[in-house]
């Protein structure tokens, strides 16, 4: 299972958290853990949404 983690500054996905061990997986296509995540998604799975982050006011 995976969960998304958003960047608090941009509110865009910055990491994939592998929930089994809490690993932070970068969005790098050369990273084999990210490749495994993409394969998992391609198999029809959906990661947990990211927690909401408090964004700075304008």
């Amino acid at each position, binding site marked *: 299972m995976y969960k998304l*983690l958003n960047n*608090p500054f941009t509110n865009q996905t910055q990491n994939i958290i592998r929930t089994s061990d809490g*690993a*932070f997986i970068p969005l790098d296509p*050369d*990273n084999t853990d*990210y490749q495994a995540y993409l394969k998992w998604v391609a198999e029809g799975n959906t990661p947990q949404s990211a927690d909401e982050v408090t964004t700075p006011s304008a």
Partner: protein
Amino acid sequence: MTQALNLANLANSVNSSGQLAGSAVNGAVASATNATNATNLTGGTCTIGTTQLGAGDASIMKNRIINGAMVIDQRNAGASITNNSATFAWGVDRMIVYGTQTSKFTSQQNAGSVTPPVGFTNYLGITSLSAYSITSTDWFAVSQRIEGFNTADLQWGTANAKTVTLSFQVYSSLTGTFGGVLTNSAQNRSYPFTYTVSSVNTWTSISITVAGDTTGTWVGATNGTGIAVVWGLGVGSTLSGTAGSWAGANYYSATGATSVVGTSGATFYITGVQLEVGSSATGYEYVNYQTSLANCQRYFSRWDSTNNTYTPFIPITYSYAPSTIAQGTYFHPVSMRSAPTITSSAIGTFNTSFTVLTLSAIQGFTGIDKNVSSIAFTTAASTLGYTAIVTANGVTTAFINFSAEL
């Protein structure tokens, strides 16, 4: 060979008038004669009889295996681990240990504390935990995936594919025919091989020569997997192939090979692993410790507090008010193969050098790229700009792992 190199010193013997000193000429001729008698020197390749030695034309990187002497063990520091079917593990750095059924074997640097073979201080030891009967699709193995940058010159997948020789030392409580494979990244080209262990609990030198694959798709000079070397510990029939030839299939061993996991308490120890260009095994290419460690850190590095319970890590600065985030930048010891996956110990194992910048949670560790990672904690700080050093919290168990394995 050494005397033949004296020819290269002739230039140094030319005097100011452009004449060769007589002694230099005589010495060079004598040396060349001796060299010719000993070997056949052709284009940098040394041939004895019909055997090419060191045909890789390399004085370094002869061995394409990293940590073949099993010296570096950053993850486990010599501790035993048990195989888990859910994930790869590394018995020592760069050496994957895996099995499709959980808890069938343990892996440990210098398991059993036997005397390593002459010239070595370490080995990777596998111990079977049960007498497991493998199914047709089970596989248990030790392997190393070699990066494409380090195999591209072999030109596998072309008509110019080079012959390689795999050598290693093995020690087992079992005798018989063991197996393994060389395979490509897509795992659709495999070369199963066998080797024989005739005496129990005795270090045995193994050498296997493989003609390079002239077909198939092989990763070239990239950071993907160039070649994977696999030693089977018990592989089912579906994943085993005929030894001694290339096959367009995904195999992990040779048909009929011994199953280590099939005997409770069986041991399989290995070290001195070398994969080199040429049709004969040459002496193991020893690598100094710091070079071997750096080579491993391209794929995995670790900060931990094993030796100092307040080991400092990096400075962080309270820089983001709404979520009270303090963050810093960590530069990897060497450029990694890819941006790393990061795991760590629990938040309670970390502290800071500044009491008002206490840490309440791990916000996120992000491998930015091959060189840099971002480290961010949620803090209880109250003033932007506060800076402190992240340290271990008086424990030996704090760690942060950075993994860019193949």
